[in-house]
């Protein structure tokens, strides 16, 4: 369909300001949080109701127009990167919290609601929405569902998939589905899990019932410094081996610590090779007990300095540095590239060592801040996009890190999604049979492949061209060669 004809059809039921097609209006939508990739869409549509979403999708379906959903555009893998001949469907105006049910501990929300807004609405009842991505002031719950987002507290409280009960989803053909239920399970296949993390490939989420969690009576954090990153890694294993599941367990390496200290002035130990932040929450009795045990384990694991937050202000201060890692990276370097692999924790020291080697090899600094408790690494490669060839070098460095994660028995993405960014590495992680199953799932929901085309799952042809070898988790390609 001609763009102007499509605009006319959409404006038949949408107000003029909800259908954009002039290039200056399209500009703000040309990228998400992965700004290295940019593309203006043909049209941007901003529906306000599910009914409008359905009508937009029906028109696009009939005219075979690609559709890309967008929440708040904070995604880090280019999932919301527009299609040049498609409609960018922004869910930002569906931003109402429809109901908070404090007794059942659930909230019914629209997809454009900000993650933090849910916790704010639940706070008067002593409840909150547990998954807390660092982007929570901005990112939308619809985007969280699409990426299965996590946060610092997911070690104990789970990811998005563990904290939602029900979705309303509109398929590309414009049909609404009710997936999951207000009870704890639903009949049939677990389509709720299938939708979670599906990166806008299977349907448009228009309503979500999230679970709310009682706010803990108390939280306290231990900050431990280590002179060797391996000792810090072992400390993580020792805490968990002792039967403790901390509310959060985060690590920062020396470069990261120095960068954030300069930014937030918390008094982190600048000589330490690694800093661990380990939080306990629960009833006052539980926290006291757990903090005592954590403190002992940190000492036994060789911590050179241990501090425990004395009050809520200090607890937030200890966390401030970890939470400010991204902006801090932005201060010490013109650009940074955030990676997101997960590995079994036991390989932490080995993989970090490997990253350090690569960093020297490529002549690019890399700071590590990550969810140590669940082995989710976020190496931030520092580079300068204005230097010719530096972005390419950075991307190559990033690819090497991801391949190392697969070889260590892990995965190329823990929480940021595949999007367009990691599409080639999917060929390394999965066999063609496995990729075929992914395509089959896509086809069950969207047989014409109109939703977010080209993302998340590579075509088999692309993998053949990319020439990546499929690496089975844990098995190395050339086991006889020395690693890293």
């Amino acid at each position, binding site marked *: 369909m001609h763009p102007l004809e499509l605009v006319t059809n959409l404006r038949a039921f949408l107000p003029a300001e909800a259908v954009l097609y002039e290039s200056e209006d399209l500009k703000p939508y040309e990228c998400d949080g992965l700004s290295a990739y940019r593309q203006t869409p043909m049209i941007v549509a901003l529906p306000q109701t599910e009914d409008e979403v359905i009508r937009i999708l029906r028109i696009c379906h009939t005219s075979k127009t690609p559709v890309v959903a967008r929440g708040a555009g904070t995604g880090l893998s280019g999932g919301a990167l527009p299609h040049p001949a498609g409609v960018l469907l922004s869910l930002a105006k569906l931003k109402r919290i429809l109901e908070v049910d404090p007794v059942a501990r659930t909230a019914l929300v629209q997809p454009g609601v900000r993650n933090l807004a849910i916790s704010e609405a639940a706070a008067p009842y002593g409840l909150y929405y547990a998954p807390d991505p660092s982007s929570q002031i901005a990112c939308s719950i619809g985007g969280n569902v699409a990426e299965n987002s996590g946060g610092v507290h997911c070690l104990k409280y789970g990811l998005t998939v563990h904290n939602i009960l029900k979705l309303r989803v509109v398929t590309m053909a414009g049909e609404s589905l009710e997936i999951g239920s207000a009870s*704890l399970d639903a009949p049939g296949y677990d389509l709720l899990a299938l939708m979670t993390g599906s990166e806008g490939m299977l349907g448009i989420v228009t309503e979500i019932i999230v679970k709310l969690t009682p706010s803990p009576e108390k939280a306290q954090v231990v900050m431990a410094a280590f002179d060797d990153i391996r000792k810090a890694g072992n400390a993580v294993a020792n805490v968990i081996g002792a039967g403790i599941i901390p509310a959060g367990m985060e690590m920062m390496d020396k470069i990261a610590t120095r960068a954030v200290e300069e930014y937030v002035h918390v008094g982190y130990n600048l000589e330490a090779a690694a800093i661990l932040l380990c939080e306990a929450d629960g009833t006052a009795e539980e926290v006291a007990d757990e903090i005592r045990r954590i403190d002992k384990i940190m000492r036994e694991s060789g911590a050179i300095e241990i501090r425990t937050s004395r009050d809520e202000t200090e607890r937030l201060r200890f966390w401030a540095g970890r939470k400010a890692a991204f902006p801090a990276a932005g201060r010490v370097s013109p650009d940074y590239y955030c990676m997101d692999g997960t590995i079994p924790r036991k390989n932490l020291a080995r993989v970090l060592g490997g990253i350090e080697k690569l960093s020297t090899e490529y002549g690019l600094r890399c700071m590590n801040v990550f969810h140590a408790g669940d082995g989710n690494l976020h190496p931030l490669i520092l580079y300068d996009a204005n230097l010719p060839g530096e972005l390419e070098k950075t991307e190559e460095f990033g690819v090497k890190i991801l391949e190392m994660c697969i070889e260590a028995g892990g995965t190329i993405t823990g929480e940021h999604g595949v999007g367009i960014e990691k599409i080639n590495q999917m060929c390394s*992680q999965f066999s063609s049979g496995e990729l075929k199953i992914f395509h089959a799932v896509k086809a069950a929901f969207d047989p014409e492949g109109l939703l977010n085309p080209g993302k998340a799952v590579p075509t088999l042809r692309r993998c053949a061209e990319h020439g990546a070898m499929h690496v089975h988790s844990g098995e190395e390609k050339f086991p006889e060669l020395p690693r890293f």
Partner: protein
Amino acid sequence: MQNIIDQFANIIRAAAGCKAPLRICGGGSKEFYGNRIVGQNIDMLDITTYSGIVDYEPTELVVTARTGTRLADLEAELYKHRQMLAFEPPHFGSAATLGGCVATGLSGPRRASVGAVRDFVLGVRMLDGRGDDLRFGGQVMKNVAGYDISRLMTGSMGTLGLLLEVSLKVLPLPPMEMTLSLQMKEAEAIEKMNLWAGKPLPISATCFCNDALTLRLSGAEAAVRAAHAKLGGEEVAEGAAFWQSVREQTHIFFQPGKSLWRLSIKSTAPPLSLLGQQLIEWGGALRWLISDAEVGTETVRVAAKTASGHATLFRSGESSAAAFHPLAPEMMNIHRCLKEKFDPMGILNPGRMYPGL
């Protein structure tokens, strides 16, 4: 072990070649659950030969085991390291396997506080209906590469593939557990369970039956004692045995020979007036109904639906053709498409879940 997988794959390919249905079978402990498999000359595919733990490192909180592994053996190994399958899967017999546990997707008393089987599944290795050996997910806690096939397989009753290996997140055993009993009526119990679930209390299981609300507290000793002081109630001496009887349905409530309905509904739903006796778990979200045949299927389904949930005929005298709650037509379409893609010849447990799947 690879030769066993090759054997399984050959059986599947042969069956697909002549469109002959296969009945995937572990220990047979959950044979009663779901519908009868449809078709003529059904062959059995016994997975119990493919057993054993593949990988278990307690400090990683992950165990990977072959699906023919007896659930009891797996739990015993975890117990040695003071860890557990936190979702407390019912065994329903000593032969129960990990495969049956994941395929049926059933969870026990701790479900409302920690999550269900699907919440702990991290990865699977499986054969699809073409006999292709596939792996999804992995052994790490966070993984969003590709669609979540591992969780899709959980609870799919063997209709989408043959599970070979499953990686599960495990949790440490709580340092202390205490069981309390409080006398009250049903409506008050439902209200209390919901109220307390909204507070930071270490309640790990609930059960209401015969005007008694039984609660289990799990956690650090100080926290458990403090919660007991807050909640009141009598301490039950044989707490562990009580929860075991609820989990395994050996509790006196579950009289054999009658129809047992499982209603999974919104936890705050008021008492359901249905013919028969009820037992409530999961903070009000799970209602078991024992009744003689006179309570109509339709009545139970409508009651569950009205309470924002669904009803399963969990056990019944005669083998049923419609154990599970009917799906909306558009949802059934998606199910059929998925089945067709995973198992194009329709040979894996056909009809066990729904007709045509």
